[in-house]
């Protein structure tokens, strides 16, 4: 759901969000993904966020399994 929103907004931004505020004269030479293209190491951020999502989802699955085990226990004693 989050990813859907992000990708929609990413596509929207391709219409042109010029990044105006530069701090120093050399900045125009620094590679930034001005329109969020793949240059400028944006994929590192994607990898990081992906890892975090994977980790949290795995932990959630682990919790889910614990609940499932409890639900299967014969409770009537």
């Amino acid at each position, binding site marked *: 759901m989050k990813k859907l929103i992000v990708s929609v*907004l990413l596509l929207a931004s391709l219409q042109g969000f010029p990044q105006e505020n530069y701090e120093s004269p050399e900045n125009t030479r620094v590679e930034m993904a001005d329109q969020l293209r793949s240059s400028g190491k944006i994929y590192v951020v994607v990898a990081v966020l992906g890892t975090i999502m994977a980790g949290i989802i795995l932990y959630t699955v682990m919790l889910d399994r614990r609940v499932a085990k409890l639900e299967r226990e014969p409770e009537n004693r």
Partner: protein
Amino acid sequence: MKSVWWKILCVLLLLYTVVGGFLMDVPRLHILNESIRNTFFHVPMWLGMMTLLLISAIYSVLYLKKPSLRYDVFASEFAKTGILFGVLGVVTGMIWAKFTWTSAWSGDPKQNNAAIALLIYLAYLLLRNSLKDPQQRSRISAVYNILAFSTLIPLLYILPAQTDSLHPGSGGNAAFADIDLDNRLRVVFYPAVIGWTLLGIWLSTIGIRIQNIKNRFDYIKK
């Protein structure tokens, strides 16, 4: 614990973090380039881990003052999510380092400190597993938890003194210090920290609820 407002807040903050994190304007720096956006994802893992471990240690202290199983469950579950965030922090740190510092593990103090924290708290889980009697387990592991956390804190001050760090904001790298003060990053960073920490707390509370139910079942079985 069952109230909903902070969970909704957590989701909203994280949504804001992800969207803002990718779209908002960030300082332009060599080497880091766009990956500076990792500040919103990697750094909160570290801060979240320390917060969760602190909460775990506090509950351990509470347990020793007044032995109640409730405190023990809190302590262990918060330690577990603390370990989760620690692992995620170290792994994401390695990914980030591979592309910016050229090697995945460069002997950086923060990396080492996180690794040591993981060793200590994994040992905590091992200790809990090897003690059978519940009361003894709670008491002994509470003692170890306090000892572990108290050892971890000085480590935060010692390790940076050991090596020059590639980590922004410490050692020989002044670049990030300027960025720390950069308001553009702060706008997303502070909410990010709160959001990720709330997520960690949320996962802990789920674990606590599971453990409580399990304890109730065990008690009923007896």
